[in-house]
């Protein structure tokens, strides 16, 4: 009995310390992003809350098992100078221990599946419903080897670029965005057997969606903070599925801005596009 109490007390103390550190981590970072380091979207927040919840339980479970193992290894070891002998207790079964363990692990796993997994998925699915995405900004995303191409059909922007001509994604804060994701190369649209799987990932948004050749995927989310790649490099579009030699370079800058700044940017893009098209004397998708 004394050993059981000792394990329990050590677990309470060591586990308590570990939980204190865990909670400090959870409450750290901008907007309590904690373990996610930087979260700036509604879907990312769903994942973050699930992560925080599981982390607290995982740390407690980890500490319990480690304390049981370490305590046994220290307390029941054959000490220096002692002769190895048969263990005094040869108990091969303890219904209470086995019962608590099995029932406990079943209950915990069911709990984790209901919350945060199923409840989190409810929140994710709800965020994808049309009624929650009224007035969504549509961004067509074409993933090709190796480039992200963003176009804004509602504003007639065919390929959003920054002043250096690199692809860039601009989003107004707190407005739903509908990403329409295709693995497609506008410059080589006759070579569809060479299209590969990419994965559209913005680390700061806490979500990625695979982009599969021959399929159109939709992803709805709401950017919740004004930020940009310059502010934090987690705010970037990054391909997350290996797609050939250029995979590491397949990234693009992201700017989340005020609605006013977004409107100004749209005008700037239109101007830029018109001047390019005037230069080339054509209107098409050769950009």
């Amino acid at each position, binding site marked *: 009995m004394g050993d059981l109490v000792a394990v329990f007390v050590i677990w309470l103390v060591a586990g308590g310390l570990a939980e204190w550190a865990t909670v400090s981590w959870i409450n750290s970072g901008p907007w309590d992003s904690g373990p996610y380091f930087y979260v700036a979207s509604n879907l990312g927040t769903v994942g973050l809350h699930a992560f925080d919840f599981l982390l607290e339980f995982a740390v407690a479970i980890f500490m319990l098992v480690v304390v049981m*193992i370490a305590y046994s*290894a220290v307390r029941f070891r054959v000490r220096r100078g002692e002769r190895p002998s*048969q263990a005094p207790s*040869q108990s091969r079964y303890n219904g209470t221990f086995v019962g608590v363990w099995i029932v406990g692990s079943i209950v915990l796993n069911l709990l984790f599946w209901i919350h945060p997994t199923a409840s989190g998925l409810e929140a994710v699915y709800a965020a994808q419903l049309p009624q929650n995405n009224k007035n969504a900004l549509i961004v067509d995303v074409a993933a090709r080897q190796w480039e992200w191409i963003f176009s804004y059909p509602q504003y007639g922007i065919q390929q959003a670029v920054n002043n250096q001509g690199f692809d860039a994604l601009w989003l107004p804060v707190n407005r739903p965005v509908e990403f329409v994701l295709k693995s497609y190369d506008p410059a080589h649209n006759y070579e569809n057997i060479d299209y590969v799987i990419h994965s559209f990932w913005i680390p700061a948004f806490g979500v990625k969606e695979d982009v599969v050749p021959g399929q159109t995927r939709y992803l709805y989310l709401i950017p919740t903070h004004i930020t940009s790649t310059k502010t934090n490099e*987690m705010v970037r579009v990054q391909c997350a599925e290996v797609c050939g*030699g250029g995979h*590491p370079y397949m990234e693009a800058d992201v700017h989340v801005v005020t609605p006013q700044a977004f409107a100004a940017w749209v005008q700037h893009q239109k101007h830029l596009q018109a001047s390019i098209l005037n230069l080339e004397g054509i209107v098409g998708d050769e950009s």
Partner: protein
Amino acid sequence: MAPAMRGVLWGLVAFFVFNAATLAVDPSAESPYASQVSVTVGWFAAMIAYLLGIGGLEAVARPMFGLSDTWREAPGWRRYFGFSTDHKVVGLQYMLASAGGFLVAGLVAMAMRYQLMTPYLTIFGSTSDYLTAVGIHGTIMMFSVATVFMVGGLGNYLVPLMIGTNRTVFPKLSGLSVWLVPFGILTVALSPLLGGFTTGWRGYQPLAGSDTNGILFYYLGIVALTTSSFMVALNLTTTIIFRRAPGVTWNRLPMFAWGILTVSLLNLIWLPEIQITYLMNLAERLVPLNLFNANGSPAMYLDLFWLFGHPEVYIVVVPALAVWNEILPVMGKKSLFARPVAVLGLVFVMLLSGLVWAHHMFTNIRATEQLPFSFFTEMISIPTGFAYLAAIGTLWRSRLQVNTPTLLVLMSMFNFLIGGLTGLFLADVPINYQIHNTFWVVGHFHYTIIGGMVFSSLAAMYYWLPKFSGRMFNEFWGKFGAIWIFIAFNATFGNFFVLGLRGMNRWVPVYPGYLVPENVWTSIAAFVLGAGFLFHAAHLWWAWYRGEKADENPWGARTLEWQTSSPTPEVNFSRPPIVAANFYSYGDDAPPVLWAGDASHAD
């Protein structure tokens, strides 16, 4: 000529002859000397010629045609370089081949970690070269080390001894299969000759379809390695079912034998699936068929791959879980706790492992498929936990000798616990959206495979070293090495979780600058870890030949492999053992394992 030399020579000749013959059939002016088709035909011919050369001609091919078996094994150490039907020779051949794979793939990993110390290319000429290195590392580690060392190596050597028989049911099958391991490792390692491949170890389509021809050697190498594992599984399953000594009932079957039985069943179920998948991929390239590109179904390949790919990780770890509960009762001199629960855990892991594959594809599959797959993924932790239940119950109030094998088992339990708990986060779909394909995943599976399986394999090597060689390792240096790799391992792969959360994705030799400091520390720890494994290899090598002479049964274990002399004699048991008691019953009043009257019975 040594059989191994003859095999290599015949293989090379067959490759060039059949490669040239294929070109003769297709003599278009544009054909290069090595085309996709000719290389494939040449490779299959080389494999058959090589297997004939190492001894298959005399021992297998001749008897198949009704001629006599004229194979004679070379004496002494030279028998390890040719075909052998002795399960102990085959087991050691497997361990050496697998260790060779570990060395090759480990050196590749060191090169990768060196590259990752900078956010720009250094030792790799291109990002594709780096991706080829990733693919070679992963493929060789998974198919020739993780699924092979414990099953083909320890399994072939120990299972017949543990169940009290002198030979396996199909000794020639294992004798041949072991030679496919170096052949497969070489095939994969030589893929850069054909241009390498950028898909990593998973060979994702449709990228594989537009990859260079190195992907052929990826497919073919895996065909060789999985064929090897399949043949072992056939042999060991049959042996465990039909060759148990009298008294080794199912209720008394040793834990390690249970582990090998369950993974062998997994191998028998799932290896044919992945082999068919790779043959389809091969045909897709050679014909081509448009199965898995945008005109077919790219996601289909992902399903086919992970349908095998997830049971595979349990093929890796189930023998490790079994080794924990094999070693702990012996070292604690305490009866194995809740043995039926531990066995049921292995069996349920085996059954559930076929229901979880799509958790590798949460960012890809339909929403309707996410909940069931996350359900089974979370539930599989319950039977996996039974291994912990039995181990902790056994440790409790034991008389534990904390020596090198024990220490490595406890470390393996610690590491695998982290591997399992980090899997809990991956099983949660909204979290998976963020950490999928980041270094979190890489950290997670290295914790389960290195932390779980490799640490347990080292524990097993130390535990059974007196059995293999009749000599004992040095306790101080064994513990020293164990602590060394434990610290270096956790310093390396613990960092991976943080890197993943901070936005470090997989398959990138070039990455944003803010991740540099973390990567530098990770790489330094990785080099220390690599040196630690070399240290263990050197120590084990030294102990094998120069260590102190060990007692016949230095640990006082009760399982059958320790009831014969050490090192194991040529004939395992001169008289068939008859088992009269449980192998894991300790205590002063534990009945003897062997039936006292076995001498008279054997007559």
